[in-house]
């Protein structure tokens, strides 16, 4: 049976379980011995019948591919299995293709492997169906025993539901752990071939050449400093646009604008945050970059066609609403009594804002700016589309630079072996990116929380 049929089977059996459980409970209800409603007993029985079976099926489906892969390897004669990994890979690819097609192949060895695979797949399916059926059935049978009504069904159900809820919240931890482990693990493998020091402080980044055999693992090719500098350069340009514009618009909208203008202007500015980054990338690469290039050249400057300036400006625009809504939050958290105190002394509005509100809101604003910076550093699509690929160590905004995220994308798109230092380097970069943004976020969130508490 395939998985959807199996799923239907489980559902059906669970339904049966529900009704048998409920009937069982009803019959006891007449004797007045029940601790919960009959339907609770029905649900409990259905859960006993359905959940273990479903879990088994899920695990089975997840583990089956790697098991079957092993089967293929085992079924290959030693002469092939002992060949170099490339050839073996080719063989396995052919086999997989044939399996996907459902067609037969002339090569007897491959044909044998395919048959073995199909055999194993069939066996596995039968076994799974049998097991699922047994598990579901045993749930129903348990529901028919006398033991059922001795249990407080509702409390049992609620305990199970609560367990599910705990698992749901656990996903956040699992995700974080997953991120840390996956990038850390691969990064450590990378650092086995390239020293951490060379990676962190090397000034030459050319991963393409490093995969040539004669150069494999040669140090110097994976020096990430130009990427860090490029990332900083573009982020700095973005922040130079986003912070003043975002902060000043937040101030204007919250302190000066009429209510009507605000109700129109705020959502309009927030539209900027809703536009996908790939759209900004398109705008940066096809409109802003050529414009800056032409403008620069008309005054005699040589501008790269993928200048850091173009990517930085567009990224800054993208972050404007981020900065402005965070600043808006913190500015409005400053108590009205501060404003009154200052205005009551005869301060003008701008004096009040500059000398009382901004200093009072400063921690919150700093937190917001840090969050925005973390977003700029991690932003990918704009730089992938509008920044360069070549790693150049420069601080000139008119030059093309590359960034950490651009390199991650370049290294990981396209088909290549997963184990090459090139792909592993992407994970090392990912680790740096994750660590940097994590630190920024933790600091920022801490500052913002402390700030909120101050005025609560």
């Amino acid at each position, binding site marked *: 049976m395939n998985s959807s049929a199996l799923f239907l089977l489980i559902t059906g059996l669970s339904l049966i379980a529900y009704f048998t459980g409920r009937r069982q409970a009803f019959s006891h209800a007449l004797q007045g011995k029940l601790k919960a409603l009959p339907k609770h007993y029905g649900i409990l029985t259905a859960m006993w019948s359905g959940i273990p079976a479903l879990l088994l099926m899920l695990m089975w489906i997840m583990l089956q591919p790697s098991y079957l892969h092993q089967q293929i390897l085992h079924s290959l004669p030693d002469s092939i299995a002992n060949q170099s990994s490339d050839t073996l890979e080719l063989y396995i690819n052919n086999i997989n293709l044939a399996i996907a097609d459902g067609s037969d192949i002339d090569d007897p060895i491959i044909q044998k492997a395919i048959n073995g695979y199909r055999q194993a797949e069939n066996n596995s399916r039968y076994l799974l169906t049998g097991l699922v059926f047994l598990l579901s059935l045993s749930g129903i049978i348990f529901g028919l025993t006398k033991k059922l009504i001795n249990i407080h069904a509702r409390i049992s159900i609620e305990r199970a539901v609560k367990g599910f809820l705990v698992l*749901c919240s656990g996903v956040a931890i699992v*995700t974080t752990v997953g991120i840390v482990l996956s990038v850390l693990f691969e990064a450590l493998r990378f650092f086995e071939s390239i020293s951490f020091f060379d990676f962190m402080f090397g000034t030459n980044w050319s991963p393409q050449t490093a995969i040539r055999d004669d150069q494999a693992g040669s140090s110097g090719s994976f020096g990430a400093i130009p990427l860090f500098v490029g990332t900083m350069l573009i982020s700095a340009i973005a922040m130079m646009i986003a912070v*003043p514009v975002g902060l*000043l618009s937040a101030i*204007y909208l919250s302190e000066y604008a009429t209510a009507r203008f605000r109700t129109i202007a705020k959502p309009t500015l927030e539209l900027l945050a809703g536009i996908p980054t*790939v759209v900004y990338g*398109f705008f940066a690469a096809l409109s802003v970059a050529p414009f800056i290039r032409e403008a620069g050249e008309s005054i005699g400057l040589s501008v790269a066609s993928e200048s850091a300036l173009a990517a930085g400006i567009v990224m800054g625009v993208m972050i404007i609403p981020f900065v402005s809504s965070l600043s808006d939050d913190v500015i409005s958290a400053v108590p009205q009594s501060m404003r009154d105190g200052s205005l009551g002394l005869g301060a003008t509005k701008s004096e009040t804002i500059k000398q009382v509100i901004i200093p009072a809101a400063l921690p919150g604003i700093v937190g917001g700016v840090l969050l925005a910076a*973390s977003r700029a550093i991690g932003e*990918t699509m704009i730089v992938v589309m509008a920044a360069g690929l070549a790693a150049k160590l420069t601080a000139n905004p008119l030059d093309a630079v590359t960034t950490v995220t651009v390199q991650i994308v370049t290294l990981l*798109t396209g088909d290549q072996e997963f184990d090459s230092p090139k792909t592993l380097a992407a994970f090392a970069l990912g680790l740096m990116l994750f660590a940097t943004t994590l630190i920024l976020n933790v600091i920022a969130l801490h500052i913002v929380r402390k700030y909120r508490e101050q005025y609560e």
Partner: protein
Amino acid sequence: MNNTDKVKQSLKKRYAKEKRFQLYGKIAVMTGFVFLGLLLLDIITKAIPAFQSTEILLEIPLDRHTLELSSNIALNEDTLSAIDYAGLVKKSMRQKFPDIKKRKDKKQLYKLISSGAEFDLRDMVISKPELISTTPLLIWVKADDDIDTFFKLQTRTSRVTDKQAEFVEQLILQDQIRTSFNTTFFTASDSREPEQAGIKGALLGSFWTLLVTLFLSLPIGIGAAVYLEEFAPQNKLTDFIEININNLAAVPSIVFGLLGLAVFINFFGMPRSVPLVGGLVLSLMTLPTIIISSRAAIKSVPPSIKEAALGLGASHMQTVFHHVLPLAMPGILTGAIIGMAQALGETAPLLMIGMVAFIVDIPGGVVDSATVLPVQIYLWSDSPERAFTALTAATILVLLAFLAVMNMLAIFLRKHFERRW
């Protein structure tokens, strides 16, 4: 000089400063507006040409004699697909310009027409065998993308030769070239030829991916929010979960892509480029958004309602599922829609898990290779053909339209169903 005079003296300067400061504020707001306006204007102007495509009128003789089909041959799919449609198209082009003799010129003549024209013709004939008759078929076929750009926009790229320009002039004189609404854009999937490329594949890819995302992130997100808001004890673990959620909300999206690549594809051996994996990655990414907004919605349900239910003897769990959750639902759904909108526009993590491949087939399920709208935008924006720029911009408009609809839905939900206590 008393204080009043001193204050008076300072006033002029201070008011000037006040005015300047207000002006800075106005400029800042306007900067945002101007950028938004420029962005939209730029994309719309670039997109407009993509909705029109240039077509050329061909007259194709479809009698059995020309087709070399003797009258006793049955017209079924096999026989019909064996016909040399490319030859028919070329022949019909030659008949338009009988003076052309040179091989080189002929080649240029054929290039006026999209390479897909013969396949369109074939599909048409196979679906309507009665077209095989003595009356020649008049059919508008798509022009090649360079000719399309040349005719539509009157801008000649270097790839349009003098000869070809001359051909187009003559076609215009004979009224055998026109523009019409580009339906291919909505009904075809990716192609190397701009005039044959469409977004249906990417649209469906986005659909399947979002479906997976929704089915995973909504229940898990609500579950986590309910637990944290209603049941979680005040302890270190709960704090840790909260810190985790807040941090995950700010982790760069590309890191989620790395996670997907390392865990789902390499560790669990899931296939590349499929909506299932894309959906998994995007659900992990949108989960924090949904959890945070669901918690806010649950929190806004007044405790009095909870107390009323508890007072009637309902268990805490029953209270939450019978009373709190239904009341919080509009808020939760609003958050979910915003999360889905985020997921719809997300590109970077999907590049990591291989959804960036060139895929012509239209995906029929969550385990078919697919690409999604934003990735399609990324792919096309990189293409050298000029016509792809227009297609990219048009795809952006479609994406933005979807996002606008989703956000309006969220606003509608918030305005009409969210209760304020």
